[in-house]
């Protein structure tokens, strides 16, 4: 389990962030005493640091520079200071990413994931599999029992999202949200069209009722 250390002085954000990251399957350590942060970092050896800049005891940038001197620990600065100069300064001090508040939760998670992946040098899982159905993200194909079909970019994203949330009901609005995050600016009608095409392809593979419509709620794999 990868461990993330949260250095944030606002108690509510700290609490919510811990909850969010724990739900995502990370180990979380929140710092509540801001006096000897470097020591705390050494003690718990996290895989990633989420660092707020406006700390009570010490400026976050100084802290970031201090940590960088002795370790290559990935650092994401999460701050409300949003000027280009601040960002430039932060990145030049060696932080791995710079996210400004108020951030969107999915974006924060995606960037945490990206930094962790980069630092570990492990490629993202390429193949998703649910009930024998396999999706290759790099090749953009879906396969079942040795037969495969090519997917368009939109279909791939939709199916991948449904598969990572297999069993859950995914609302149309959530799907649209996910696609927009991937720079696919889809509207309600286009989503329906894409779902229909996806179902046809899955039917051709021999899984006709793979994506169920839950009336008034969304889709379920």
């Amino acid at each position, binding site marked *: 389990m990868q461990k993330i250390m949260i250095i944030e002085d*606002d108690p*509510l*954000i700290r609490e*919510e*962030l811990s909850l*969010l990251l724990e739900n995502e399957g990370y180990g979380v350590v929140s710092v509540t005493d801001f006096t000897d942060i470097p020591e705390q970092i050494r003690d718990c050896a996290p895989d990633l640091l989420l660092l707020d800049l*406006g700390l009570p005891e010490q400026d976050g940038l100084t802290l970031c520079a201090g940590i960088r001197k002795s370790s290559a620990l990935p650092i994401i600065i999460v701050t*409300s*200071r*949003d*000027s*280009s*100069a601040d*960002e*430039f*300064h932060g990145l*030049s001090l060696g932080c791995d990413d710079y996210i*400004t*508040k*108020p*951030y*969107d*939760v999915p*974006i924060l998670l995606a960037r945490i994931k990206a930094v962790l992946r980069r630092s570990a040098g492990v490629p993202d899982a390429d193949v998703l599999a649910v009930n024998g159905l396999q999706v290759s993200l790099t090749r953009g194909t879906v396969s079942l029992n040795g037969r495969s079909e090519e997917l368009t970019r939109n279909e791939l994203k939709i199916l991948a999202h449904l598969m990572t949330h297999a069993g859950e009901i995914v*609302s149309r*609005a*959530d799907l*649209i*949200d996910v696609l*927009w*995050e991937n*720079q696919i*600016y889809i*509207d*309600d009608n286009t989503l329906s069209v894409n779902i229909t095409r996806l179902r046809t392809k899955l039917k051709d593979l021999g899984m006709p009722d793979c994506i169920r419509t839950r009336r008034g709620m969304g889709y379920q794999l």
Partner: protein
Amino acid sequence: MTIREFLSDRLGKITGQLCCTVSAALFLLATGTSSGVIVLLLLFLLLISITTQAAEYLKCRRRLSELDVLMQGLDQKYLFSECAPPPRTVYEQKLFDLMRCSGRAMIGAVSDAQASMQEYREYIESWVHEIKTPLTAAKLTCRHLEPDSRRKFSAELAQIEAHVERALYYARVKSPEQDCIIRQTDLADIVSQAVGNHRTLLIQSQMKIETGDLDFTVYTDRKWAVFMLGQLLQNASRYRNNDSPSILLTATRCGRQVRLTVSDNGIGIPAHELPRVFDRGFTGSNGRTRGGSTGIGLYLCRKLAALLEIDLQISSEEQKGTAVTLTFPARQAAETLQDCKTNPY
């Protein structure tokens, strides 16, 4: 100062002199001086007076033009009395003292105003940063709500965020050099970030986003460009056509510049209001009937565009839509701009 102005200024004095001379001549004539001598004397006096007046005129003119040059060379005109050459006569000295006294009062008032502006700007900036913490907390917390209220709540939060952002840029536009870093940036990145920032609003408005060729590199400040584009996207959503609204973002190269066009199929702007849409606080008939318009977004766009040397143009047709073009400067222009700005590093 023209000769006519000089003479009309001296009219009283010259008339007085003339009266004195005429009465002296009459007196001399009465006391038996020959008219020939008097004529000679008068000619002589005339010569002297013309010469002195001419000399005085030239002196006056030289001094005025000296002061004129000084004034033109001054960056802050109100500092004139501090830089003016010392007076030569007692009368000038008195005037000079009065002027300097008034100038000093002005300098004081100006620097007080500047200081309080600066303080206010700093307060707004720090306020904006403060408010972002509870906003973040609210955004994180609203995940726990059931989907429908979460969506409504997120939309409201997004609106608050947009207002806060405008306040921040309003403060920044007053002293831009503190925050501008011109760098090579992908136009596609700017667009996707701006669309991403306003995702909640755009999805809620059921806006269809179409993108054309955006594969260009521009030289600009990314954050500012994203902010400007964000204002345009917000306007397009606010003044959308309720029947299948859409926004098209596309770019073309023209010469060494890159032109980004943001066009929508919204309700458009009446022709007579179009020239004023960039004015501060101008909301127009659309803004009044729909409400919620602040008249600040496009004003800030124009200001920021001027600072980034982006040419901003708008065209619109009622019930057809509005198109805004942003022409990004060629590389050289952007580089000179960077030289002018104080880069903190």
